[in-house]
């Protein structure tokens, strides 16, 4: 017979508990991220300062490019992070899509603006570096072109999320798009390289030299660590906001908000 169980006024406790058992609870992750985001933030600042000091002061000037090469300490880590974050975003969104995990969707959504910022940073530093190297801010270099298309992919993802009001629908739609983008990125990368060699003959490769001075390598590695820590800190903070918004009906959010 059709009937209805008495509705539970507080769905939070039992629901949060089930979430915890099934996927790792948003509440737990919220507090976990709250502990770790500042730590990663501090580490990022420390590594940035150290990396910049070693990169701008200690490292010797390049015998060809003089001091202008020093922008690689920003450019190369940014370019690396732009790709890396896209992969993290797409994989996380894919996990959320398949196993219906809210936390994964929150991570994916939080990755996008950070990744887009790194992509933009890589483009700007690449253009700035282009002026002394090529004599112009923009040439259709394979790497820069790939970064530009990647920025378009990030922008498309964020535009789609912004257009879909419903969080869950938006997250799933974004996940499909991110996964399609993930399959496409290697193809885009390869096609752009192919197109580039076709038109430019010998391309100027920025990191083409077989060996790099240890005094240049060390600050570069420090900067790599710095951008990774920054990404973790920024992403975790964003995830906390997403979780607060999405779990606003639950008791733990009420407790957080009301002290």
């Amino acid at each position, binding site marked *: *017979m*059709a*009937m*209805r*169980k*008495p*509705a*539970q006024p507080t*769905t939070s406790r039992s*629901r949060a508990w089930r979430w915890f058992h099934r996927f790792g609870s948003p509440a737990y992750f919220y507090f976990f991220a709250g502990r770790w985001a500042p730590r990663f933030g501090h580490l990022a600042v420390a590594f940035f300062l150290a990396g910049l000091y070693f990169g701008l002061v200690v490292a010797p000037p390049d015998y060809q490019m003089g001091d202008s090469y020093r922008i690689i300490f920003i450019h190369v880590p940014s370019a690396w992070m732009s790709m890396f974050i896209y992969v993290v975003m797409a994989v996380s969104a894919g996990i959320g899509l398949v196993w*219906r995990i809210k936390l994964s969707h929150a991570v994916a959504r939080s990755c996008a603006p950070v990744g887009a910022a790194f992509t933009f940073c890589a483009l700007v530093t690449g253009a700035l570096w282009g002026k002394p190297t090529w004599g112009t801010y923009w040439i259709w270099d394979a790497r820069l072109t790939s970064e530009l298309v990647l920025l378009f992919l990030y922008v498309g993802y964020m535009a789609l999320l912004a257009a879909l009001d*419903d969080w869950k629908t938006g997250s799933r739609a974004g996940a499909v798009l991110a996964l399609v983008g993930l399959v496409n990125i290697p193809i885009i990368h390869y096609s752009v390289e192919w197109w580039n060699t076709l038109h430019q003959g010998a391309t100027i490769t920025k990191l083409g030299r077989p060996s790099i001075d240890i005094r240049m390598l060390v600050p570069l590695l420090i900067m790599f660590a710095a951008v990774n820590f920054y990404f973790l800190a920024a992403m975790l903070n964003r995830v906390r906001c997403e979780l607060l918004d999405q779990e*606003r*009906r639950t008791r733990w959010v009420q407790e957080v908000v009301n002290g």
Partner: protein
Amino acid sequence: MHSSPLPQAVRKTGFSGPARLEGREIECIRGHACLFSNLEFALESGTALQILGANGTGKTSLIRIITGLTEADQGTISWNQVNIRDPGAAYAGHFSYLGHRNGLNDALTPRENLHYLGKLEASEPWLGIGDSLEQFEIGNCLNIPCARLSAGQQQRVALARVYRSPARLWVLDEPATALDAPAIGILAEIMTRHLLAGGLIVYTSHQAIDLGPVTARWLQL
């Protein structure tokens, strides 16, 4: 019951074997509002379930959860003890769904629409297109583009599609929309016949649909 003589297009044989549709601990959240939670229902062959509730209580959401178009935030719907979301459930072939949007293309005639939609069924419909339209007394509309039919006529075409369907479970969201009194009588009649043949029906309706001798249950949202 509708009393005027109808063309007797009825199934020669009913559905065989038991069938059971069951919902357990269904919860539906829209935006930040919880429409319903811990909802339980079950129905067996030969029974109908009417979902009742005021506007905005989630009748359509529940209907869509039963069709699998929308996923419940919690809980499961099972058809013959198999969760409809299981990869091997093959649930889609067992129900026919009529939503607010009737599924008819404006540019096509009822014949073309029903031909196409019939091919989407698990097996060939048991009743011819013309006969099913006769059943709803719109046999003369067979070759008129749907855009030129009235809302009531279109709804009759959409119901004819459900009636032809070989599916055992009918999921009808406001099937009496735009229908006049005689048409509601026909609808009640075909629903009763479907139930007597061993079918199952889940429906919402603001108009009363008299299912005569058949067990009708209701679910208040």
